[in-house]
């Protein structure tokens, strides 16, 4: 008796699961889509030291160093943005050696240790580094995280200050956490 009832119930679930699976997938954006939209927007809320900022006729240069998870997503997002009236040019490079002209760099190595190596090479440059890692040396000035099902980020303001970058309060206010600059 109970066995039969359990079975009926189970079949009910099977049918329901099948029905759900067949429903049209109105997908939410993926993490990468939202990150790709974020990255070019960060440029608006950061100011670069004189000399490191793009010149009057130069484009703003956004680089992907290492592995590129975004592909066209980032090109589309960058095309939709301007920084102080300048277009954003996206460059992709395997190593940071070519990163001299970059203003903003999304850095992603093959592994955590690899990411850390890439970041070390960029350390002395006035480049706004963006990473996925939250911890340790694999962490850029802005590092993404997913909290509460949303893409959020942390900001290492101390590291930004060391490179002469200053970050607007609007962006700082949105960060989940800020490692503050030493005053």
């Amino acid at each position, binding site marked *: 008796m109970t066995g039969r009832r359990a079975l009926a119930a189970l079949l009910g679930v099977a049918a329901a699961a099948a029905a759900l*699976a067949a429903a049209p997938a109105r997908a939410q954006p993926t993490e990468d889509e939202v990150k790709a939209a974020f990255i070019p927007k960060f440029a608006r809320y950061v100011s670069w030291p004189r000399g490191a900022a793009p010149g009057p006729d130069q484009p703003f240069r956004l680089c992907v160093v290492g592995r590129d998870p975004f592909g066209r997503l980032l090109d589309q997002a960058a095309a939709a943005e301007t920084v102080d009236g300048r277009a954003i040019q996206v460059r992709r490079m395997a190593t940071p050696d070519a990163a001299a002209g970059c203003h903003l760099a999304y850095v992603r190595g093959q592994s955590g240790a690899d990411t850390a190596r890439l970041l070390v090479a960029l350390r002395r440059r006035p480049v706004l580094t963006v990473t996925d890692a939250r911890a340790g040396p694999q962490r850029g000035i802005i590092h993404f995280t997913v909290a509460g099902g949303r893409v959020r980020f942390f900001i290492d303001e101390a590291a930004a200050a060391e490179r002469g970058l200053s970050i607007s309060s609007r962006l700082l206010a949105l960060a989940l956490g800020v490692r503050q600059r030493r005053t």
Partner: protein
Amino acid sequence: MRHATLCAGTAAALLSGHPAAAEQAGPASAETAEELSGLSIEELARIPVRSASKREEPLSAAPTALFVVTGEEIEASAAHSIPEALRLAPNLQVQQVDARQYAITARGFNSLETSNKLLVLIDGRTIYSPLASSVFWELHNPPVEDIRQIEVISGPGGTLYGPNAVNGVVNILTRDARDTLGGFVRATAGGDERSLAARYGAPFGGDGAVRVYAHLFDREDVAPGIGPDLDDRFRGWQAGFRADFGGGGDHFTVQGDVFDTDVTALDALPDDGDSGHNLLARWSRQLDAGSSVEVQAYYDYFEREFLLVRDSLQTLDAEVQFNRRAGAHELVAGAGMRTTRDEFINNLNLFRLDPQSRRLWVFNLFAQDRIALSPALALTVGLKAERTSFTGVELLPNLRLAWQPGERALLWGAVSRAVRTPSRIDRQLANPPLLARGDDFVSEKLIAFEAGYRGRPSESTTLSVSVFLNLYEDIRTTEFTGDPLPIRLRNGLRGHSYGIEAWSSTQLMPWWRVSLGAATLWKDFELEPGAVDLARGDALGHDPDFQLLARSHISLADRLELNAGLRWVGDIEARSGPGIGDHVEADARLAYRLTGNLEVYVAGRNLLHRTHAESDDPQRAQLAERSIFAGTRMRF
């Protein structure tokens, strides 16, 4: 009975058979990218993202019946305690026994005293007690907002996870301190319960962070059920900290908790209640791209005082684990040592532990290798050798095969052996001349056969189905060994159980997710030839033969969130107790976000009935009650 098995097989075939029929939905279109670019950064930060595939599923546990409850899902639900949060897992059966206590198990054997085949870990710290191999859930009250995720494995996990992982493993992980920077406060109030949790996290050093928290809770007593009125109000507090730091390939974690709870029953003594503390340190180091090593040690102490009974336990544990990935091999090997010293003083009746205080040791060595036979096929072979003070060396092998025919599906099968080593009560409870020590009580043994499917039949749906057949031997019985006294605890029962577990989650709309879950259980046990059981199969527990869960999560305009769950739990047949009928119950939480950092909500549990019975424990069962409360969560 037999036709039920057959049909169940068909049901499984139906479930696992349909993915092929439901392929659709490509990646999000370019329009989405443009739409996203049109949003402000504040708006972007509020866009829910697809998360079903982003759960961190431990690789080692891949070919198992694994259900992951995320911290976000717990926060969205009406649960404010670990046992209530575990109701989100379809492969666990949760019985509320009274205002304080719960009985929780996977794949059967449930009841307060018989749910002794589950291994429960909080951040690597084992919390089952060697007194009766059961978990005192009331001793663990971290704020649920600190939980990152709970991995629930139904089935043996003995090789990797350690002793007592016979029917399942519950692995509770709290958030890295670097993810909980800033302040957080939660306050709830209602007719039956109130709580206040506060946390503050701050960075320290170059790369580290530390958080401290405190949690106060007060739950009113619940109405008596099958048991007598216990007047069992539950109130207490827990506080603690966690620090995460390290540079290079090193990650250090240091954490600790301290807690104290009161028993306010009419017949309670002034000191009655529970208290304890623990401290854990872990160091993991990435050696090179493919290998890592982890060392962990902890100390844990608790004492429980009720009526004229005082139970205390001191645990020291140290473990080391080594991981290496090379070529087709992924090797995990390790060793561990645990020692416990307990004391059980009973002035309430004549049952004694003999000796009253005892130090026990558990040593283990394990190795497991996952071998990629081909890109789609992987074989996992593992063996753990465990030596305990009571039983000498036990071998816990497991063999798993995983076949991944495409990106979206995994089929797996496994055979494993697990044992529940004797508890102090099994071996050393005595009440002469009535009950003599069970000196020859041996481990309860299980050989488990499992198979399952896990995958994404469509872009927006995840589905998992598993079946199991568990063969048990040497389950506890109570026998006459004299003429007729004394009686002794022996291992006279054997038998099998089998069942199906299935769950799915579907993102129906960007703002609407629906999850379904089901678990069934059939049990068939008999006495070994010549054995008798005066306890009439009590050790087998009292289990419903099915439970069904449905949950809906709606998130509107990022302001309004409605999470509601419905569960139908089958009846518990009377074996020795009176038994209880099946029940349907619901819980819900409606939250409104006033600003990005401030949320208010109303929530309720057991909404459909004023009271209902979940446990048939004749001494203790009270009723689960409807509880409605309002709350707020604030971050700053």
